[in-house]
């Protein structure tokens, strides 16, 4: 076993990295600095059918089936903001760019990629691979709506590109969108071009005591928590004053985003927006949550593993075309509680698609539903 690992280390000597914090320890850690180098790693892995776990900031590694990798491929060195065109409102970045760093740069010219607001160490590639969106999706749509171009290194090491660096494009099949939420099943997401939005002139957070049937015409974001509701406003000062008066409650200037929920287990409940109130009523009082009306997601923090309640809620959601997804949990949970639940329709089709990008199924194998 060790000699195999030693041989692999020799083979990948040019790309080796220091141990990656939080990553499985038995694997060989690499951090290629270019897409071509990443291609070399994946080609090697593919030739020997060695499973590869892609690692960005580690923030969303709790999602999906568990991977027992021979190689951990860190995107830490794929960290360039390659091309930012503020006047065209597009930016091209490598996968390993930290979201916090990117948004800070973009804010200098009053722009945003509308990526998650409290990203921690999350990277652009990681958030795209996991299909994660920020709270502002209520107004601007999910992250996948801003995917303009993608450079993928397929599981068998091919470098391919889809989409283009323009904000409106129907040239060819929409690979950039397919990459969002793909969890590496098409290969490594190496580089992307994202559509940007301007940051508004004025920003405000209004806090209300109770959920409302209506929060006014298309607010930026709304987060309902157990004891309060926060409504996020964006626009001109005149608009924000008018909206604040309409909403009532108390307010503060700027956007005050909630931190990720506490608890040993993180869940994402996904439902048609009309079902949100129903599911909140069924939620045990010890669970904390952030419900996103109009979006249909409830992010949940569970203190102690409670398979019965979690399964019951999952069944309720799945019976209504929804899902209950694990976003984080201790390793032991995954063997008794599936990360995704029931597989979606078209799973065979998904398998056939993945087989054409990663024929040996080496990048994050088993991470998608149905063990794909």
């Amino acid at each position, binding site marked *: 076993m060790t000699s195999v690992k030693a041989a692999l280390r020799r083979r990948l000597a040019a790309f080796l990295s220091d141990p990656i914090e939080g990553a499985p320890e038995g694997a060989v850690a690499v951090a290629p600095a270019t897409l071509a180098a990443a291609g070399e790693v994946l080609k090697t892995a593919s030739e020997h059918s060695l499973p590869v776990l892609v690692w960005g900031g580690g923030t969303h590694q709790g999602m999906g089936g568990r991977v027992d990798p021979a190689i951990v491929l860190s995107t830490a060195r794929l960290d360039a903001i390659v091309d930012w065109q503020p006047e065209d409102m597009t930016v091209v970045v490598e996968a390993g760019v930290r979201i916090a760093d990117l948004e800070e740069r973009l804010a200098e010219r009053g722009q945003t990629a509308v990526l998650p607001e409290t990203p921690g160490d999350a990277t652009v590639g990681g958030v795209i691979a996991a299909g994660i969106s920020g709270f502002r999706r209520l107004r601007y749509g999910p992250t996948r709506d801003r995917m303009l171009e993608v450079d993928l290194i397929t599981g068998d090491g091919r470098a391919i590109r889809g989409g283009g660096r*323009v904000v409106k494009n129907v040239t060819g099949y929409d690979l950039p969108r397919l990459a969002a939420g793909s969890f590496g099943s098409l290969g490594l997401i190496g580089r992307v071009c994202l559509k940007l939005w301007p940051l508004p002139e004025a920003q405000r957070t209004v806090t209300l005591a109770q959920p409302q049937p209506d929060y006014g*015409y298309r607010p930026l974001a709304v987060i309902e928590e157990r004891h309060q509701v926060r409504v996020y406003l964006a626009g001109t000062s005149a608009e924000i004053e008018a909206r604040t008066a309409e909403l009532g409650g108390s307010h503060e200037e700027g956007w005050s985003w909630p931190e990720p929920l506490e608890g040993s287990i993180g869940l994402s409940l996904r439902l048609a927006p009309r079902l949100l109130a129903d599911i909140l009523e069924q939620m045990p009082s010890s669970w904390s949550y952030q419900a996103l009306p109009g979006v*249909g997601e409830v992010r949940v923090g569970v203190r102690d593993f409670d398979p019965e309640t979690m399964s019951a809620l999952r069944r309720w959601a799945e019976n209504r075309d929804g899902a209950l997804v694990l976003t984080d949990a201790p390793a032991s949970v995954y063997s008794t509680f599936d990360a995704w639940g029931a597989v979606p329709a078209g799973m065979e089709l998904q398998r056939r698609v993945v087989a054409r990008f990663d024929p040996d199924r080496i990048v994050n194998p088993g991470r998608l539903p149905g063990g794909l």
Partner: protein
Amino acid sequence: MRVVTFVRELQDLLGEERVLADPLRRHVYGKDGGIRRGDVAVVTLPATVGEVAEIVRIAGRHAIPVVPRGAGTGLAGGAVPTSPSLVVSLTRLTEIEVDVESRTAWVGAGVLNLDLSKHTAAFGLHFAPDPSSQAACTIGGNVANNSGGPHCLAEGSTVNHVLAVELVTATGEVLVLGTDAPDPIGLDLRGIVVGSEGTLGIVTRALVKLTPNPPAARTLLAAFERVEDAAATVSGIIAEGIVPAALEMMDQPMTIAVERFVGAGFPTDAAAVLLAEVTGHPAAVAAEAELVRAVAESNGATRIRVAADQAERDLLWKGRKAAFGAVAQLAPDYYLHDTVVPRTKLVDVLAQVYDIADRYDLAIMNVFHAGDGNLHPLMAFDASEEGVLDRVHAAADEVARVCVAAGGSLSGEHGIGLEKRDLMPLVFSEADLDAQARLVEAFDPDRMFNPDKVLPTGSRCFDMGRPVPEGIWI
């Protein structure tokens, strides 16, 4: 003989009146809104998803290509069969089921775009994509082409508004991809089906997102002496940090044509006209309209007209959306192009477009979704004039090359179809095209759905032009 059996099977399924095989109808269905004509074996008019699935199975047994079709308003040849094909017209799938609380609707592929928004108006909701053909085009066609429209600047194209599709696959299976819950688990196949131009299967229904109607809107028309000033106004507005609901531009030849046709009071002496619309909260709209006006003035606008009421707004929009109809007065035929460039390259590219038209001695006029960098150069001509079609095609080809060279793309909203298929290598490498071909293969291994569209022949590396047995590559 085989065709006879085939038609009889279809007639057994649908009855004789919904299977059209007479020469006239085969002729009519051989064309879309563009300038190419194809070869139709038979046309079917299914009314249910079950019938569509059965038609696909019958076609599969007889190895006849299947070409799905909406209203036929497409311009890229997406619905034009390249070999004798079975056309599946989806216009009879017209059910609409609205979920007001979730702001979604299941919509039959045959529902007209504008009919959907009319249907949901009572709930204060609309379907955001609004192609100029919206009174005639179908939702199924919008899904196939990932259609856009003026209001896609702020709202995004069709794909941003489709939550799920009901897809009839190559085996005749009916799959629902996506749901009304956010972020469906697994690969987002609904997103790849949108914009796939009928090559992956037949979309019979779509679950679409509905957008609240804005409580306030203001529409402004600004006239400029130079195209550059209009373009600078577009960039200036965006740089001010607002994304208007729409930012449309017309050059002088187009404005003259439109004014003659609609009589909306468009300034025909201006080199360029900019139509801007801001929508939203009443307080926002007032401030943003002022800002648009200020930016236009600082960039030398000679006149600015603000629509006083809904009737005047409608009139201005009628002028914009009637642009293509207006051209019919000038010449019997037209070729409408669709390319995209980075917004900042609009002026440069436009100068080159005029130059190309000059060299080919073609009348050209331009209308753009300027905010998106989406150009629509339009060449008006008389097809009976000898050699003119060759000149039109050659000029169109050059325009596409100029746009790609400026960092742009082949199509923003009309699709690739047949029209731009062979230009795909301008923007994609062999490996890129091969990857797209593999993707198609995963859905449709025998290429029964709308073959020969989107990807040039030979895209699949080692493709000898024969169907490849499933699984040989893995």
